[in-house]
């Protein structure tokens, strides 16, 4: 049993680990993920007693505090009770010793008297265990491939069958195939041990561990079951990490996390990069508390739900165009609403923004019920439309259009409004010279007009942007640029986007979650990857079948199809 209590490490007064608490039992495997500089390796080294900085707090192995032991006693534990596989495969092996000699040495240092027969037998078994040819044991490290070296290092770490195994970036710098083999090997060897996997590679972590802790600037910000945590990250930093790591599960384009990590930020360590920060975030450090089967350190309890719709109904006459929709949109997230025309997507969007009246159900924005929409509401929620040129009055210049929301909201004086407008126009990559500002909608291109419309929606700095087919009137190349722009803005501002489209191929590229709408109901909802690769509802399958692909014999040629009777609402976990 390994208990880590308030472990702090500082180098030259800089706090690299700012208080980590962990309790691990035999059989537990925990991934420590985070950006470089988060303190992951420092944690591993501190546990091993190899760290150079000042260490405080307690590390209890089976109740015995390791931090109070002297170097001799530590050495006895190191390699025997606790072993570590180091990050750099190239440097971790001694270049002038054969591999099997190095493994023998690892066994010998922890044995009272030499028994060459036992040691030789043990080495052979270790070679088998890590899948390394015994003949390779006589090689020097430079004669081995990266994967073989990694196997040798693992064999060394396993030499004395330690209780605690710490793996620091075990698969970094390995090619994908070798990585998969090493991962499988580790998974086997980690059984019945306390395993700590330190990595920035989320997919390796996902394969190796059952639990996962997200480390940021020396603090654990989120800790939970690996699958659960990756499927529905609750801390904004965790979501940022997942979004920025390429994988085959999320089809959305990669997005980074704005800003960079700084140690010693007052309050929540992530506060200066967080898009949902409130006042308290920069004042007090949030404690790691349990919430919904997970530990999370966030003053706001994790990513906040921005828009919550429950049983929303919109009627025209007696006909329900939106017929009981439940949907929750979180801060900084994109939900794509997909369906054929007439399925009620736009009606739902217009009901949210208040252009249509809500007949039944409830809508909440930031937890507050939406009863009437005043000016403040429109500061938080904005919309962009399908046809940019029509959405801008033909009597307004670019500058008039972009400053109009500010004028309506009575923001600042004329000079300040122009200042804000220019800044936002720059953000959407448009010119701010006088000649352009004086153009009318018919004098600019469709792509430019949509950028103007986006700038106009952004001047009020909204939290939620409803994009109603924002690119369907544009050329493919322009469409791609506009979508990229929207993703960049989302990354920078933490904007939540309700993205309405009939194109499921497009939707999967821009959204975190996908909701498929049919006849005013959401028939399937889930992660963009899940819905597009393993659809459940027949209508979703149909949409995927007719979705654009580049295969000439591809799908999309299938025969007529009838909407099944009584489609069921089916929400997926992730």
């Amino acid at each position: 049993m390994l208990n880590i209590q308030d472990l702090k490490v500082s180098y030259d007064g800089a706090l690299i680990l700012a208080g980590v608490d962990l309790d691990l039992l035999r059989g537990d495997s925990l991934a420590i993920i985070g950006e470089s500089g988060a303190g992951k390796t420092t944690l591993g080294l501190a546990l091993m007693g190899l760290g150079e900085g000042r260490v405080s707090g307690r590390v209890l192995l089976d109740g015995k505090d390791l931090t109070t032991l002297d170097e001799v006693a530590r050495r006895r534990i190191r390699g025997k009770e606790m072993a570590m596989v180091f990050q750099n495969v190239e440097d971790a092996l001694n270049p002038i010793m054969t591999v099997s000699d190095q493994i023998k040495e690892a066994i010998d240092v922890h044995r009272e008297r030499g028994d060459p027969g036992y040691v030789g037998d043990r080495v052979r078994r270790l070679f088998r265990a890590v899948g390394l040819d015994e003949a390779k044991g006589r090689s020097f490290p430079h004669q081995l491939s990266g994967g073989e070296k990694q196997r040798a290092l693992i064999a060394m770490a396993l030499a004395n069958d330690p209780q605690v195994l710490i793996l620091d970036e075990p698969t970094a710098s390995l090619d994908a195939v070798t990585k998969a083999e090493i991962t499988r090997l580790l998974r086997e060897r980690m059984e019945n041990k306390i395993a700590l996997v330190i990595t920035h590679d989320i997919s390796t972590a996902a394969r190796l561990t059952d639990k996962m802790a997200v480390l940021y600037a020396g603090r654990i910000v989120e800790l939970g079951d690996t699958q659960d945590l990756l499927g529905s990250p609750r801390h904004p930093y965790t979501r940022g990490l997942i979004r920025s790591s390429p994988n085959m599960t999320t089809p959305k384009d990669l997005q980074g996390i704005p800003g960079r990590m700084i140690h010693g930020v007052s309050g929540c360590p992530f506060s200066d990069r967080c898009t949902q920060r409130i006042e308290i975030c920069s004042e007090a450090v949030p404690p790691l508390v349990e919430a919904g089967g997970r530990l999370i350190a966030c003053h706001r309890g994790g990513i906040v739900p921005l828009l919550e719709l429950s049983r929303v109904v919109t009627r025209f006459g007696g006909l329900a165009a939106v017929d009981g929709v439940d949907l929750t949109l979180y801060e900084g997230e994109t939900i794509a609403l997909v369906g054929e025309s007439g399925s009620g997507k736009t009606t739902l969007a217009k009901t949210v923004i208040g252009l249509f009246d809500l007949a039944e159900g409830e809508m909440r924005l930031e937890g507050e019920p939406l009863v009437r929409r005043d000016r403040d509401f429109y500061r938080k929620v904005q919309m962009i439309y399908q046809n940019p040129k029509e959405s801008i009055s033909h009597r307004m210049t670019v500058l008039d259009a972009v400053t109009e929301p500010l004028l309506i909201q009575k923001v600042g004086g004329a000079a300040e409004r122009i200042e804000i407008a220019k800044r936002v126009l720059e953000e959407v990559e448009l010119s701010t010279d006088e000649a352009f500002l004086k153009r009318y909608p018919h004098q600019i291109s469709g792509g430019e007009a949509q950028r103007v419309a986006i700038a106009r929606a952004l001047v009020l700095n909204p939290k939620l942007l409803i994009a109603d087919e924002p690119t369907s009137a544009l050329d493919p190349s322009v469409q791609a640029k506009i979508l990229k722009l929207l993703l960049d803005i989302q990354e920078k501002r933490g904007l939540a986007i309700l993205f309405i489209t009939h194109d499921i191929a497009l939707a999967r590229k821009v959204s975190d979650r996908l909701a498929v709408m049919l006849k005013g109901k959401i028939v399937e909802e889930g992660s963009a990857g899940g819905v597009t690769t393993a659809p459940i509802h027949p209508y979703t399958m149909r949409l995927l079948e007719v979705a654009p692909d580049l295969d000439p014999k591809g799908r999309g040629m299938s025969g007529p199809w009838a909407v099944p009777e009584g489609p069921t609402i089916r929400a997926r976990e992730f």
Partner: protein
Amino acid sequence: MHVDVWHEVGERNVGRAGLLLIGLIVLLAIFAPVLTPYSPRENTSTQAFSRPSADHWLGTNDARQDIWTQLLYGARTSLSVGFGVALLSGFISVLVGGTAAIFGGLYDRFWMRIVDATIAIPDVVVIILVAAYLRPNVLLMILLLSALSWPGGARVIRAQTLTLKERMHVSAARTFGAGWSHLLFRHIVPDLAPVLVAIMIQDARRAVFMEAGLSFLGISDPSVMSWGKMMQYARVFTYLEVWKWWLLPTGLALSSTLIGLSFTGYALESALDPRLRDRDDHAEGGV
């Protein structure tokens, strides 16, 4: 589109003739003091019922007043009533028709019933009744005529606003939190301009006609010269030759004004959306 409409009006002969007539009469009214040495009520030294001469281009009437002068000042009254009513009635039409369309619901139904009721009331009866009890003057006339003529325009404006408010840029402005006045005056009225001007011209024409008719019936400010009043006075002396330069020019002036307004309005309306040409025009009618 807003540019083309005016251009087209200028291109058409009817429109050009209408604008020319109105322009001429407006000039005459504005420069009245320059065009005559007399004042309309001045009893000149010339004999009553004198024939047109160099001093008196249209001769004098029974009270030795200069008829040309009276005609010029009468134009002022007719035109100011016409313009006043056009502006006031047009404004009320926009306000009521526009807000009814924007707000909809009960508010819309309420105002549309008011419009129906107002249109159903015979205008002349109301005016005669009101004018008989109040001291008639130009301002009162403008208020009264406006009160009776806005409903027709309000209907048209409401119908137009209903289509305009579905335009995306109006929706967009709503989603910035814009109130009704911003929507109406920044987004809808600019697009309504040609229709609104057509309505205002109709209102003006009707007002000029009504004012003349009421003055003829004696319902007018006694201190103000007006074409209707001139015609009423002249009518008494039709057995004399004086009608040729008293009654006839007055009638012609009034007709020219009405024709000028009608032509302009007609040209404008046909230059507009063809749907407007089929419009059931409640602004028609009169005495």
